[in-house]
C-alpha cells in the first residue's frame, strides 16, 4: 500500500499521512512549477550512466519503502544512474496504483536527490534521508567502495534499519545502480555486503546497468569487473541491462510511432518508455525513456506481489525457480509489448505475438540472443486478461524453438497477475537464466585485460587505502570462473538428452 502526503507543505519528517480508503488525493495547486534545472545534455553523455566528471556530486539516495499488500520491498537507489531510474520507478508506480486504487498508494518518507527534490514530486519525498558528498566518486570504484563505504556505513545502516522497521514483512531489497561509474558501482556493491550481513534473510535483487561498447568512461572496465565480483558473491539475483539495448528499443518504437502507418495509432500511456500520466511534468528526454523501460521492468517484477492473480508469484519464488546453482544468478529480461495500438478490435493473434516477441533478441534488455543459447530456466510473468490456457498454449508453441539444459527440459515458471500495466490489456515479462549472458561477461573481461595489461589509470585505484593489485586479479578470476561455468553448460548444448539409470528396488 502506498500513501502520499496530502498536504504539499513540508511536514515534519515523521508526519506521514494515511488517506482513508477510497479517498481521492489531489495535488492541484500545491505542486509548484518544475524548474528547468540545467541545459540539455548531449546525447552521448546521457547514454552512459557513469557520470562523475561533469557531475560533482555523488549521491546516495535514501531508502524508500514500497509497501505492498503483504510483503514489502525496499528500493536502494545508488549513484546517478540508480537514482534516475529509481525516480522513474516511483513515478510509474504512483501512476499504476492510482489507476487501480483511488486512495493513492505511496508510502515514502525518504528523500531522493537534487532535481527530484525540486520537481513536482518533491513533496512526496523527504529530504532528510539524503546523503551527499561534494567530491563525488570520480568514476572510481575504489572511492565508492572503500572510501564512501566505510565513511557512510553507519549512517546507511541506520537508514536501512529504519526503513525495514516500517515494513510488516520485508521480503526483498532492490538495488539499482550502474556498473561503470564510481558511486553506483562501488558504493552500490558495498551496500550489498552490508545488506547481506544485516538482513541475511531478505533477498537482494540487483538491477545493474552495464557499460555499452561506446562508453566513454575510460575506467568503466575496472569499475565493472570489481563490481562483478561483489555481484557474484553477494547478490541473490542480478538483472543485467545495457544502454545500447535500451536505446535500440527506443529507436524501434520511434520508427513505429513516426512511420505513420495507416490506421495505427499508439496509445501514449502504453509506451513502455512513456511517463504519460505520471506526475512528472518535465519534457521527456532520451534517458527518461530508457529509464522508464527499466522502471517498467521493476514494476512487472513486483506486480504479482502487489496485485491479485490466479497464479501468484512472489519474489522469493523467482530466486527459487530461476537459480539452480548459487553462482549462476544472472537473468536476462525482456518486456513485451512495447506499446499498444489504439485499435480496439485487437485480434487474438496479438496475444500470441506478445509471447513470441519475448524471445526475440530485439526485446531483450541486454545484448543477448536467448533463442540460440541454452536455457537453464525461464520465468514468464503475465499481467492482465490472460488465462492459464493461453499461457500453456504459447509455451507449447514456442518450446520446440528453444533449447533447455538436459536436466531442466521443462524449466518454466509462470505467473498470472490480473492487473495489467497502465495502457495495456496484457503484458509479459520474461526472465531467462540463459547462457546468452556470457558474451557480455566475455567482452567485459577482454576490455578489462586490454586496460590492465597497460596498467592504465591503475594508480587512481591503488592509491586508495585497501586497494591492491590482488583486488583486480581476484576480480578477474572470479569473472573467469563464471565464464567457465557458462562454457561448460554450452558444451552440453548439442548432446543428446539421456535418461540416467534409476534406483533399482527389490520387488
Amino acid at each position, binding site marked *: 500500500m502506498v500513501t502520499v502526503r496530502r498536504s504539499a507543505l513540508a511536514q515534519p519528517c515523521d508526519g506521514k499521512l494515511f488517506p482513508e480508503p477510497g479517498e481521492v488525493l489531489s495535488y492541484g495547486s500545491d505542486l509548484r512549477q518544475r524548474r528547468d534545472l540545467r541545459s540539455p545534455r548531449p546525447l552521448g553523455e546521457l547514454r552512459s550512466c557513469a557520470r562523475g566528471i561533469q557531475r560533482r556530486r555523488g549521491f546516495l539516495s535514501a531508502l524508500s519503502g514500497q509497501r505492498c499488500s503483504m510483503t514489502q520491498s525496499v528500493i536502494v537507489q545508488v549513484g546517478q544512474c540508480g537514482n534516475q531510474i529509481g525516480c522513474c520507478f516511483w513515478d510509474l508506480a504512483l501512476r499504476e496504483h492510482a489507476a487501480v486504487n483511488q486512495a493513492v498508494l505511496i508510502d515514502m518518507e525518504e528523500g531522493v536527490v537534487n532535481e527530484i527534490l525540486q520537481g513536482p514530486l518533491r513533496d512526496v519525498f523527504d529530504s532528510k534521508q539524503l546523503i551527499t558528498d561534494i567530491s563525488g566518486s570520480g568514476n572510481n570504484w575504489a572511492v565508492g567502495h572503500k572510501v564512501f563505504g566505510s565513511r557512510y556505513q553507519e549512517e546507511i545502516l541506520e537508514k536501512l534499519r529504519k526503513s525495514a522497521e516500517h515494513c510488516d514483512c520485508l521480503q526483498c531489497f532492490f538495488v539499482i545502480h550502474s556498473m561503470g561509474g564510481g558511486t553506483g558501482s562501488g558504493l552500490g556493491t558495498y551496500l550489498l555486503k552490508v545488506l547481506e550481513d544485516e538482513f541475511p534473510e531478505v533477498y537482494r535483487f540487483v538491477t545493474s546497468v552495464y557499460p555499452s561498447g561506446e562508453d566513454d568512461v575510460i575506467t568503466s572496465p575496472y569499475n565493472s569487473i570489481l563490481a562483478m565480483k561483489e555481484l557474484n558473491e553477494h547478490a541473490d539475483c542480478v538483472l543485467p541491462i545495457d544502454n545500447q539495448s535500451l536505446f535500440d528499443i527506443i529507436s524501434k518504437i520511434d520508427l513505429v510511432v513516426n512511420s505513420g502507418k495507416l490506421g495505427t495509432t499508439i496509445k501514449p500511456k502504453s509506451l513502455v518508455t512513456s511517463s504519460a500520466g505520471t506526475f512528472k511534468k518535465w519534457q521527456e528526454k532520451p534517458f527518461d525513456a530508457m529509464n522508464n523501460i527499466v522502471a517498467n521492468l521493476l514494476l512487472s517484477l513486483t506486480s504479482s506481489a502487489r496485485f491479485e492473480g490466479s497464479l501468484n508469484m512472489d519474489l*522469493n519464488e523467482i*530466486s*527459487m525457480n530461476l537459480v539452480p*546453482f548459487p553462482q549462476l544468478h544472472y537473468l536476462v529480461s525482456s518486456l513485451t509489448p512495447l506499446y499498444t495500438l489504439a485499435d480496439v478490435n485487437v485480434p487474438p493473434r496479438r496475444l500470441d505475438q506478445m509471447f513470441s516477441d519475448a524471445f526475440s533478441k530485439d526485446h531483450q534488455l541486454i545484448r543477448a540472443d536467448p533463442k540460440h543459447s541454452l536455457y537453464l530456466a525461464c520465468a514468464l510473468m503475465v499481467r492482465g486478461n490472460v488465462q492459464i490456457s493461453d499461457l500453456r498454449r504459447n509455451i507449447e508453441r514456442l518450446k520446440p524453438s528453444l533449447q533447455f539444459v538436459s536436466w531442466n527440459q521443462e524449466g518454466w515458471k509462470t505467473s498470472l497477475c490480473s492487473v495489467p500495466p497502465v495502457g495495456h490489456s496484457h503484458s509479459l515479462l520474461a526472465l531467462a537464466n540463459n547462457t546468452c549472458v556470457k558474451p557480455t561477461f566475455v567482452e567485459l573481461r577482454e576490455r578489462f585485460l586490454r586496460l590492465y595489461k597497460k596498467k592504465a589509470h591503475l594508480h587512481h585505484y591503488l592509491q586508495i587505502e585497501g586497494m591492491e593489485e590482488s583486488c583486480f586479479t581476484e576480480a578477474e578470476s572470479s569473472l573467469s570462473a563464471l565464464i567457465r561455468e557458462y562454457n561448460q553448460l554450452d558444451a552440453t548444448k548439442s548432446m543428446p538428452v539421456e535418461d540416467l539409470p534409476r*534406483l533399482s*528396488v527389490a*520387488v
Partner: protein
Amino acid sequence: MRIMRGLSLRHLNKTETAGPGAVIPIARAVLVDMEPKVINQTLSKAAQSGRWKYGQHSSFCQKQGSGNNWAYGYSVHGPRHEESIRNLIQKEVEKCDSLSGFFIIMSMAGGTGSGLGAFVTQNLQDQYSNSLKMNQIIWPYGTGEVIVQNYNSILTLSHLYRSSDALLVHENDAVHKICAKLMNIKQISFSDINQVLAHQLGSVFQPTYSAEGSFHYRRNPLGDLMENLVPHPEFKMLGVRNIPQMSENSLAYSTFTWAGLLKHLRQMLISNAKMEEGIDWQIRPPLPGLPSLSKMSLNKELHFNTSIANLLILRGKDVHSADLEGFKDPALYTSWLEPVNAFNVWRTQRAFSKYEKSAALVSNSQFLVKPLDMIVGKAWNMFASKAYVHQYTKFGIEEEDFLDSFALLEQVVASYCTL
C-alpha cells in the same frame, strides 16, 4: 491448503432463504496459507454466495509465502506455526459429534500446500491416530507451473505415503482436457478447472444411502471408502472418474441410460482414459489362462489398467436397475482380491448436480503409474546434476532425504507395476 472435516453436506442441501434470521451453514474447515491473498479471496467468495460461509476464525495466514520451497514449508513454517494450526483444528474437532477423519486438500508443486501440507498431515497422525486421513492431492501439469515441482512432488508423496491413509489424486492435465473437450471452454481459467475438481469431489462425498433401497444416509463415508479401496498400505493411490461430464448446452440434448454410461465408464477404467472422449476401445482385459498383460515393464506401453479395488457411486433415476456385471469381472482385478471384495457400489436415488443420472468411479489401480514414474524420472535427472539442491539444503532438507524419497517412490512404482 485446506483441511475439512467430514463436511456435513446435509446442511448445505437444505433449502434456505437467506432472509433475516436464516442460519447460514458454516463449513467445517480450517484454511491455512503462508500468504494472505488467496485465503482472503476464498473467504469473501464464500460469503458472497449467501448460502454458506467459512467460520470467522477458521483461517491461519502469514505474509511471506514459502517461495515454492518444500523445505521452507516443511522445516520452517511447519514447526513455527504448529501450535496455532493445531489449535484451530482442535476447535473444529471439538464441534464434531463423531469425527470420522480429515480431508487435507493441497497441491504438490508449490511450497506451502506441499511442504506444510505434509507437515500437518504428519501432525494429524500423531494427534489423532484413531482418525482417518485422506489427502486430496492436486497433481501439477506435466510442464511449466513451477520449475522445482518435481522435487516438491516427490518429497510430498514420500512423506504422505508414510503418514496418510489414502491419497486421492486429481491431475491438472486431465482436468484441463475435460474442460477443453467435454465442457467446451475456450479460454480455460483456474476457476473452470476448480469447478470440475469440485464436481469430482462432490460426486463422491455428497451423502449416499447406506444400504440398498434404504433411506438412511451413510454414517461414515470416509471409513467405508477406505475399507473398500485401501486393503493394503502399500497401495494408497486413488483416482476419480466421472460420467457424464458436459456443458449445460450439450446437456439439453442428451439422454442417458445406465447401460451406456457404465459401458463407457468401464472402458475408461480399463484403458486408463480420464474422460469419455477419445477412449481406446481396443484395449481388453486379459483372457483367463494367458499370462497377465499387466506384468509388463514400463518400457512397453502399459495397456491394460489393472485394479486393486473399485467403488462405483451411482446417483439419480432408476439407480437400482443399473447392471453392474461388467465391473465384477475378475479379469479387471489383481489376483489377490476376489471381485466380491474388490468391487463395491453405492446407490442413491437422488440426482447429483444437473445430471439426471451420473456415476463416479473411485479406483485404486495402476492409473498413476506412468505419471508417477515420469515425475520420479525428471526429479532424478535434475537431482543427478544437483540443480536447485542448495535451495533445499539451506532449510534442512538434505540429499539423504531426497534419496529416501526416491527409494520409497521407486518401490511404489514397482509394486503397482507388478500387480
